[in-house]
């Protein structure tokens, strides 16, 4: 059905709608702070580093995606931009609400990221699509408070384009239907090729040397040549631009093959003890995710690094350990990670970042034990982990944790401007 090569099956029946939350993190904050409506607002990345979500008002002041806070301090002060630390507990809950609301409209949807989802509108009457999208948008806004834009098109790549244009064009009412050829021609002609979903800066440069600079030129370029330049991936994108659907909805998320937990410290870390504590915390997060997808890992990597952007003695190192038996036990992975860390840690440096990566991930349903393994011990580990997860789900994150995670976490992230968890903690409820 969705085979694109060598002889593509043309399927013009598909209709995809990409629903995307506008300035999602900022919009979540606005739901609980109505005084922010109409004001420039930005949300910062972990550790209060860079602007990662900006309202239209903030964009109009020239604040760019990824701008470090210290470089835009003057704009923030002069225009009273409201600045927030990221509050992922809140954004995650609001995202789940948005996706739940969208799911009422169709059984076929793919949650693509925290703030966007592809919704299949196959089988809907063509002339009613725009109106239906407006209804979807209005219901999401009413039920969750989150404003969205909707792009409608016969393929996912075109739906992405339509969504982007819907966001920028005033007067679109937040919905753009790109199902007809004339609209496709007009929009693709004015779209730089690097703004097409899946075309990175390098691919764009390659295409540029062959005179392909707009999305329309990529669409109309010789397919075989495109494939020679950008592999089969590029060919699929070009075909999608032609309105031939090659990328089906992925309704089930695949289990991750790697899980990384890494953060910058709020202040430099010098002591091994603090580093052990930080790594134990990162393992705790990663192991929770591992258990969440019912997997076991066989490999753990730890890395530590100093600040590359500062004129201080530099050190970077990483090390890894293979676990004889796959495990999802926080305790066991911490033991392994600590062993690795002791091997790579050097005293006398100001470390600013560390992280762990779990790899060689396999399903927990078919564990393989080594000859000398105590299978009962592994079963006990699994029961313990489940119990800890159950308590933490009910009583709040980190109610129970391994003692090596520490209690003060002086090295922790800066999040000085974080709002309360209005929807996930009883003590944080909005007061009105």
């Amino acid at each position: 059905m969705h085979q694109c090569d060598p002889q593509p099956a043309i399927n013009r029946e598909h209709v995809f709608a990409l629903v995307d939350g506008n300035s999602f993190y900022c919009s979540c904050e606005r739901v609980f702070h109505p005084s922010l409506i109409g004001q420039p607002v930005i949300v910062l990345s972990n550790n209060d580093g860079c602007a990662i979500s900006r309202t239209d008002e903030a964009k109009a002041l020239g604040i760019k995606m990824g701008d470090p806070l210290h470089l835009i301090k003057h704009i923030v002060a002069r225009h009273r931009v409201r600045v927030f630390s990221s509050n992922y507990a809140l954004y995650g809950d609001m995202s789940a609400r948005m996706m739940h609301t969208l799911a009422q409209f169709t059984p076929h949807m793919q949650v693509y990221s925290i703030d966007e989802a592809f919704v299949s509108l196959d089988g809907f009457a063509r002339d009613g699509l725009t109106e239906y999208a407006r209804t979807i948008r209005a219901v999401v806004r009413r039920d969750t408070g989150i404003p969205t834009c909707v792009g409608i098109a016969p393929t996912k790549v075109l739906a992405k384009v339509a969504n982007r244009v819907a966001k920028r064009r005033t007067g679109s009412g937040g919905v753009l239907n790109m199902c007809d050829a004339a609209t496709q021609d007009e929009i693709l002609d004015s779209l730089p090729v690097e703004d097409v979903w899946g075309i990175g800066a390098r691919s764009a440069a390659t295409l540029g040397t062959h005179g392909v600079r707009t999305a329309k030129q990529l669409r109309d370029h010789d397919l075989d040549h495109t494939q020679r330049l950008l592999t089969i991936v590029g060919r699929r994108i070009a075909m999608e631009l032609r309105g031939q659907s090659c990328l089906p909805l992925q309704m089930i998320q695949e289990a991750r093959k790697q899980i990384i937990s890494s953060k910058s410290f709020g202040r430099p870390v010098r002591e091994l003890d603090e580093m052990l504590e930080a790594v134990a915390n990162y393992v705790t997060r990663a192991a929770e995710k591992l258990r969440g997808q019912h997997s076991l890992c066989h490999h753990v990597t730890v890395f530590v690094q100093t600040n590359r952007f500062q004129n201080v003695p530099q050190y970077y190192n990483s090390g890894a350990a293979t676990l004889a038996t796959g495990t999802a036990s926080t305790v066991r992975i911490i033991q392994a990670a600590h062993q690795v860390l002791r091997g790579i840690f050097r005293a006398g440096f100001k470390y600013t970042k560390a992280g762990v990566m779990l790899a060689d991930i396999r399903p927990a349903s078919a564990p393989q034990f080594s000859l000398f393994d105590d299978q009962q011990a592994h079963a006990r580990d699994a029961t313990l982990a489940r119990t800890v997860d159950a308590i933490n789900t009910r009583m709040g994150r980190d109610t129970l944790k391994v003692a090596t995670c520490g209690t003060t976490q002086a090295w922790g992230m800066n999040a000085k401007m974080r709002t309360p968890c209005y929807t996930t903690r009883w003590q944080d409820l909005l007061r009105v």
Partner: protein
Amino acid sequence: MGGYHRTAQMKPIHAIVGEAVHAKTTGQTNVRLPFFGCAVSCGFPSPADDYIEKKLDLNEHLIDKPAATFFVRVAGDSMLGAGIHPDDLLIVDRSKEPKNKSIVLAIVNGEFTVKRYISRNNKVILKAENPAHKDIAIVEGMQFEVVGVCTNVIHSLQ
């Protein structure tokens, strides 16, 4: 013989985890309290166990649409007359359209307020239920939005 199945009441802990995770995403819990029936502590099945027919879930009673439902804590006393006290928990359903006399959570000029929604001759008044507080008449130029309808109030008696 349903009575022999202790698991009907005593779920293994991992079953509860799954439900709790589910609850986190949908706001709905499936961990329900049995309406009647008693715990079986040793060998004998309870004669009442065969009659368990309904497990009651307060969420089911209080919440129609989990994705559109928010909890807020009451801070003031302007709605005492409607039985809404400071520190009470209000359940707000954003998906419901306010009817005349509904109690609503609204935004007026950038601030949240809970009031009774009175709609008369195309005019909206947000009425306080306490003589010490003034009603708010909505006029042109005010920022005004009904966030949702307050469907229930939970008042602790302790």
